[in-house]
C-alpha cells in the first residue's frame, strides 16, 4: 500500500502532439493518500481510463512522473508495480476453473498453497461464488465472469492499490448495488487505496471519499461529494453532478447583484467586476416558485416519487426545479425565486469567489 502521487503528468497518444486536442491527458498533479477511496468521474473519452492505465503501468505517460510513496515508478513495468486492476469487460482465463482464476495472481507471486486456499475462499464468499468455485470459467455468464474479474482484483492483500475501470457496467442493477457495498466494506476492512473510474455519478459519490471530476483530459475538480455538489469549481462539474444538474443562466454581475434577462437577483456577497462570459449557477432544489423573481415558463412536470421535477425555461435557457412532494405548486405560476446563499458565479465556466470585503 502506498500514497500515489501524479507529478505534472500528461499523456498524448500521438508521437508528436501539436494542438490541445492531441493530448488525451492535460498536465495535472494529484496526490492520493494511502488507503483512500477515490473516484474518477467523467463522461466517456475524458481520459479517465488513460489515467488509470498510466497508474497501473499499462501506459507510459508522455510527460511527468508517477510515484508510489516516495518511489518513482514511471518506468516500472506493470508486473513490478504490484497493483490490481479490474477492467470494464470481464477478463477470465477460460480454461481455468473459478478457483484457479482467483488463485492465479497469488500463484504468480509464489504464495504457499494454504494461504492461497484461504484467500480464495474468502474472496469467493465476498463475490458469492462459493458454490461455483470448481466450475470452468468458460461457460459462465458475463455477470459471473465480471465477478471473477473483481475477485481476482481483490485477492492479493499486499497490493499498492486496486484500480477499477467501470467494473460494474455489465452487472445487473441489483447485484451492482450489492457489489458496490461489498467493495466499500472491503475498503473499510483492509484499507487498500482504491481508485474507481466511472461515468455514473451515483457510483462515484457513494463509493468515494474524494471524487475527481474530469472532462476532455483535464481535472476540473477534486473534492468530497459534498463540496462538488455545493461549490462546483466548473460549470461542467455543476452540470454533471446532481440530477438534474445545476442550472446555468447568462448574467451580468455588479457587486452583490446579478442581472439576468433584465431582472435583478440579489447575491450573498459582492463580486469584483468579472471579465468574460459570466453565468450564475443554481441547484434545482435552491429555486422556488414565487410571486416575483425571474420569469419562468413551465414546460412539463415529472413526478419521481419523493419529489417533483419542474422542467422549463428562463429567458430561453433550460431551467429545472426540484419541489418536494408535499409542497403545493401554485397553479399558473410564472416567477421563480433563487436562494442567494446557493448561487455560484462562473466566469468562462470557472467558479469565482466573492471579493474580500476589505479588498
Amino acid at each position, binding site marked *: 500500500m502506498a500514497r500515489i502521487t501524479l507529478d505534472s503528468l500528461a499523456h498524448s497518444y500521438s508521437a508528436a502532439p501539436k494542438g490541445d486536442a492531441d493530448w488525451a491527458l492535460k498536465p495535472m498533479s494529484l496526490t492520493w493518500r494511502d488507503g483512500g477511496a477515490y473516484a474518477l468521474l467523467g463522461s466517456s473519452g475524458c481520459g479517465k481510463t488513460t489515467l488509470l492505465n498510466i497508474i497501473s503501468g*499499462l501506459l507510459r505517460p508522455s510527460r511527468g512522473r508517477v510515484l508510489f510513496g516516495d518511489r518513482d515508478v514511471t518506468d516500472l513495468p*506493470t*508486473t513490478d508495480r504490484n497493483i490490481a486492476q479490474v477492467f470494464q*469487460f470481464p*477478463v477470465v482465463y*477460460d480454461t481455468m476453473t473459478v478457483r484457479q482464476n482467483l488463485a492465479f*495472481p497469488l500463484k*504468480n507471486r509464489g504464495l504457499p498453497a494454504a494461504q492461497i486456499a484461504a484467500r480464495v475462499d474468502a474472496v469467493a464468499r465476498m463475490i458469492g461464488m462459493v458454490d461455483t468455485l470448481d466450475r470452468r470459467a468458460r461457460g459462465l455468464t458475463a455477470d459471473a465472469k465480471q465477478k471473477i474479474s473483481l475477485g481476482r482484483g481483490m485477492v492479493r492483500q499486499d497490493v499498492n492499490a486496486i484500480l477499477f475501470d467501470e467494473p460494474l457496467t455489465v452487472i445487473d442493477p441489483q447485484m451492482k448495488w450489492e457489489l458496490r457495498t461489498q467493495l466499500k466494506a472491503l475498503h473499510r476492512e483492509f484499507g487498500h487505496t482504491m481508485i474507481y473510474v466511472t461515468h455514473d455519478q451515483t457510483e462515484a459519490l457513494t463509493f468515494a471519499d474524494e471524487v475527481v471530476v474530469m472532462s476532455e483530459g483535464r481535472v476540473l475538480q477534486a473534492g468530497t461529494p459534498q463540496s462538488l455538489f455545493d461549490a462546483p469549481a466548473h460549470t461542467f462539474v455543476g452540470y454533471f453532478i446532481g440530477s438534474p444538474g445545476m442550472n446555468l443562466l447568462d448574467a451580468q454581475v455588479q457587486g452583490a447583484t446579478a442581472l439576468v434577462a433584465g431582472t435583478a437577483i440579489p447575491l450573498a456577497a459582492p463580486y469584483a467586476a468579472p471579465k468574460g462570459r459570466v453565468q450564475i449557477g443554481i441547484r434545482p432544489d435552491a429555486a422556488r416558485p414565487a410571486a416575483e423573481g425571474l420569469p419562468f415558463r413551465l414546460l412539463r412536470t415529472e413526478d419521481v416519487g419523493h419529489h417533483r421535477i419542474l422542467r422549463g425555461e428562463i429567458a430561453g435557457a433550460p431551467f429545472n426545479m426540484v419541489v418536494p412532494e408535499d409542497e403545493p405548486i401554485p397553479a399558473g405560476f410564472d416567477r421563480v425565486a433563487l436562494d442567494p446563499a446557493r448561487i455560484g458565479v462562473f466566469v468562462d465556466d470557472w467558479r469565482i469567489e466573492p471579493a474580500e470585503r476589505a479588498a
Partner: protein
Amino acid sequence: MDKPVNNRAWFLVLPVLVIVAFSAVIPLMTVVNYSVQDTFGNNQFFWNGLGWFQDVLESDRIHAALGRQLLFSAIILAIEIPLGIFIALNMPKRGFWASLVLVLMALPLLIPWNVVGTIWQVFGRVDIGLLGHTLAALGFDYNYVNDPIDAWATIIVMDVWHWTSLVALLCYAGLQSIPDAYYQAARIDQASRWGVFRYIELPKMSGVLLIAVLLRFMDSFMIYTEPFVATGGGPGNATTFLSIDLVKMAIGQFDLGPAAAFSLIYFLVILLISWVFYTVMTAQREAL
C-alpha cells in the same frame, strides 16, 4: 400454423446432386468397380471378390510405404506446428511490418507443388545447386540423390519451407483475435510469459490449431508431387510414399485392380486418422 409442404422442392437439390455425382460419387464407384475385378485387357473383366484387398493388406511393399508415410507425417507435424506457433507469436502485430511479413509468409503458399519440387531439386544438386554446392564446399557429405537420409532431410526441409507459413498464418489469425485486455490483465496478475502462452494464447489458438493439424496431416499424408519431382521416390524406395507407390502401381504397372483396392484403403486410412485427430483434439480442447 401449418408449414406448406411441397415435395417438388427436392428438385432444387438436383443440380448439387448432379455435380457431386459426376465429381465424386461416380469416379469413386468406378474405383470400387475396378477393385473387385481383374482384367487382362480387351475390356474383359472377371470377378475377383476381395482378393485385391487381401493382396494389398498383405503386401510388404505397401506396408513399407505406409510406414514411411506415417513417419513423414509425424516429422512434418512435429516440426511445422511448434515452428508455426513460434513464428506467429513473434510476428509484428500491426503496422507496415505486419503487412510485409504477411506477404512474405504467404509467398511459399502461392507456388505450385511441382515448381516447389523443381526448385528444391535444383537447389539441392551438388554440381549446380546453391544449397548442395555450398554444403559440399563446406565439407558436408551431402547428396540427396544417393543418400536416403539426405533425401529425407531435403524433402522435410522442403515441406517445412512450403507449409509452415500456413500454420503460422492460421495461428497468427487466432492470436490477432485476442483482445488487448487479456494481455493487460495478465500483466496486472503478474503472469509469466509461459503463463500468458498457456492460459491466454494457447486456448484462443486451439480452434485454428485443430484446423492446422488436420490440414497439415491430410496434406502430408497425401503428398505426391514434391517428392516425385525432387527425388522421384528414391534413392531406391527411400522416399516412395503411398501416393507415389500408388501411381507407380496404377499407371506404371497398369495394375488397375490392386491400385483401386489400394486407393480405397488409402482413402479409408486418411479418413480414419483424421477422425481420430479430430476427436482427440476436440476432447483436448474441452479439457484444456
